[in-house]
């Protein structure tokens, strides 16, 4: 066989096919899957893949937003529109509510990334979700580089990096006892650039904050944070209006913007291809804590 042309598969098509395969495996083997939807570009791409995996049927599982209460308005609006268009069932696990009921306590610094975990786990327990699709990619972070596509979690939602199931061929082992669950990462093999190429190819709309816009920001430790209800100027700080965009969208109190002129998807692709800093390094205050920050949070049951 040496027909190369007609049977060519681009890398994006191969990645898409793999992700769709994974989503269908989950739907076939689990009782209560749910897709974790943050309104960030990775979960948006994941949602598109779910749409494609089950067409012409509707996406056969609900989506869950672990809502820190620290949101970008554009992202919430996007979430609600998408959910309505696709006719999805949206579950909101609210950190604010969890603080009010005493499930978690607000941290002294007011950040909510870390206290998301118990809120997520409580929702998993309440709805008895057994498979949770997450949009994490292995190129994001080095602990993630070692995590499986199907990541087993015990009844406390914990990841044990030294006790992972080998994954061979396309044979994913999703077996688990009641109360245990599997985090599934269909985008494991995608890079940030792949995600952007796919957004361009599929013409997927994104919340506007992903594209360059003028915003009042304050510079802290080399990062540019939007000045808003979550981030107030400290003594001695001054804000300025800069042209920025967001590379990731997380907790609005901890996610920084990058200086950018990229106001179209093509320009973003050029920018991402040329950038010399990882997206987490550029934008996430929460990852800077220690060399093993992500590993530790995952062990506790984080995404």
């Amino acid at each position, binding site marked *: 066989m040496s027909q190369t042309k007609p049977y060519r598969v681009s890398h994006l098509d191969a990645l898409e096919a793999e992700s769709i395969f994974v989503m269908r495996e989950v739907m076939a083997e689990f009782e209560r899957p749910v897709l974790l939807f943050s309104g960030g570009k990775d979960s948006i791409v994941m949602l598109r893949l779910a749409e494609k995996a089950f067409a012409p049927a509707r996406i056969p599982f609900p989506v869950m937003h672990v809502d820190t209460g620290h949101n970008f308005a554009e992202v919430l609006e996007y979430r609600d529109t998408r959910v309505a268009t696709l006719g999805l069932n949206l579950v909101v696990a609210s950190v604010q509510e969890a603080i009010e009921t005493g499930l978690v306590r607000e941290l002294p610094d007011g950040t909510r990334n870390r206290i998301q975990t118990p809120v997520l786990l409580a929702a998993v327990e309440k709805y008895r979700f057994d498979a949770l699709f997450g949009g994490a990619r292995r190129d994001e972070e080095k602990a993630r580089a070692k995590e499986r596509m199907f990541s087993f979690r015990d009844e406390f939602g914990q990841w044990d990096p030294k006790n992972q199931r*080998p994954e061979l061929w396309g044979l994913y082992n999703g077996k688990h006892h009641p109360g245990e669950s599997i985090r599934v990462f269909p985008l494991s093999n995608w890079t940030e650039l792949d995600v952007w190429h796919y957004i361009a190819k599929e013409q997927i709309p994104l919340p506007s904050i992903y594209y360059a816009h003028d915003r009042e920001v304050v510079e802290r430790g080399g990062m540019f944070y939007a000045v808003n209800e979550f981030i107030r100027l400290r003594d001695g700080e001054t804000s300025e209006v800069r042209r920025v965009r967001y590379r990731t969208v997380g907790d609005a109190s901890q996610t920084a913007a990058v200086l950018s002129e990229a106001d179209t998807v093509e320009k973003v692709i050029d920018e991402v291809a040329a950038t010399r800093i990882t997206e987490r390094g550029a934008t996430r205050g929460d990852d800077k804590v220690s060399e093993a920050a992500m590993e530790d949070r995952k062990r506790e049951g984080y995404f």
Partner: protein
Amino acid sequence: MSQAVLETETAPAARMDLLRFATAGSVDDGKSTLIGRLLYDTKTIFADQLEAVEAASASRGDEYTNLALLTDGLRAEREQGITIDVAYRYFATPRRKFIIADTPGHIQYTRNMVTGASTADLALILVDARKGLVEQSRRHAFLTSLLRVPHLVLCINKMDLVDWDKAVYDKIADEFTSFAAKLEIGDLTIIPVSALNGDNIASRSENSPWYDGPSLLHHLEHVHIASDRNLVDVRFPVQYVIRPQSTTVTDYRGYAGQVASGVLKPGDEVMVLPSGMTSTIAGIDTADGPVDEAFPPMSVTVRLNDEIDISRGDLICRPHNAPAVAQDIEAMICWMDETAPLRVGGKYAIKHTTRTARTVVRGLQYRLDVNTLHRDEQAGELQLNEIGRVRLRTTVPLLADEYRRNRTTGGFILIDESTNRTVGAGMIIEAQ
């Protein structure tokens, strides 16, 4: 490090394809350095990653920037200075996207190499030019052939430390070639390199005028993988039945799956296993619309012209080219469980394509010494990382091919039914 000159303009994404490769080598042969070099030369290492690695190296008292810290992501790995688990790394050139499964070399990590090799298009084995072939190099070559990785690259590294002596290269290359000949290795390329200095990594080196082959990166970019796929035997394991419950789409019934091999077209006569019923393909759907043909690795939805009872775990093939419908399976097994060995009489869950059944081990013909290839027929069990030939009996038939013919319909995993752990990987030799 000097930066090799590479095109950096954004590649038209549609023209790139995907190559997965697994790396293997003994400790200190320079595997991490080589991967670091590839990432660096393709501008994949980001400034903040490099900074973090430099800081971590300094605080550990390393004399040089330890690029291994880029891949050794777990706390225990950094503390012990070793690689424990398969790490996945990504880089791209304008031609290709690459997925590296970086697997540690020691015998206790055979499980990881097998895992990384199971999906690899190419295996990259490193040896230290000063040491030549060692036991581990042979084991890595053997595992490459066992897992049927279509392409193998041997990098003879640290050529700078043997003064780029052609005789050293020739001796190792000859020895490896004759060993590989016994192993049914499809395509072998041998490259003299210095991972540290970047010779023959991203571009040809002037230090080896006697070497007229490609640089490693050139080879990775150009090695022909499109025809590694089996486009002859139609195998479509059904994953999931799509039946919309909707008022706008009525009477739709499609079989969703990923094409394992062969080419499917509307109008083709097909057979469904295990029932043996035949029909014709009414259409092949994707969310982007119907397609004229489907081939690996496409994920599609197939509709048939007849109403046949088909469910997950069934397989669509052609009437005159079908896999075995078999409950007696002969296979090579790599054992992956540290808590208990594989024993004759042991019962497990078996997952093969989209079908899950139960199985009992009827016999263990031999255990293979992966270093010498000696067969121990007296062996009573397989311990962690051991490989042997077993006979299995399954509760329901598997729709199986020989692994050598089809890596998808020829591979399976064994699962311990009490712990739910994946305990073994199997490659079918014979199914009936």
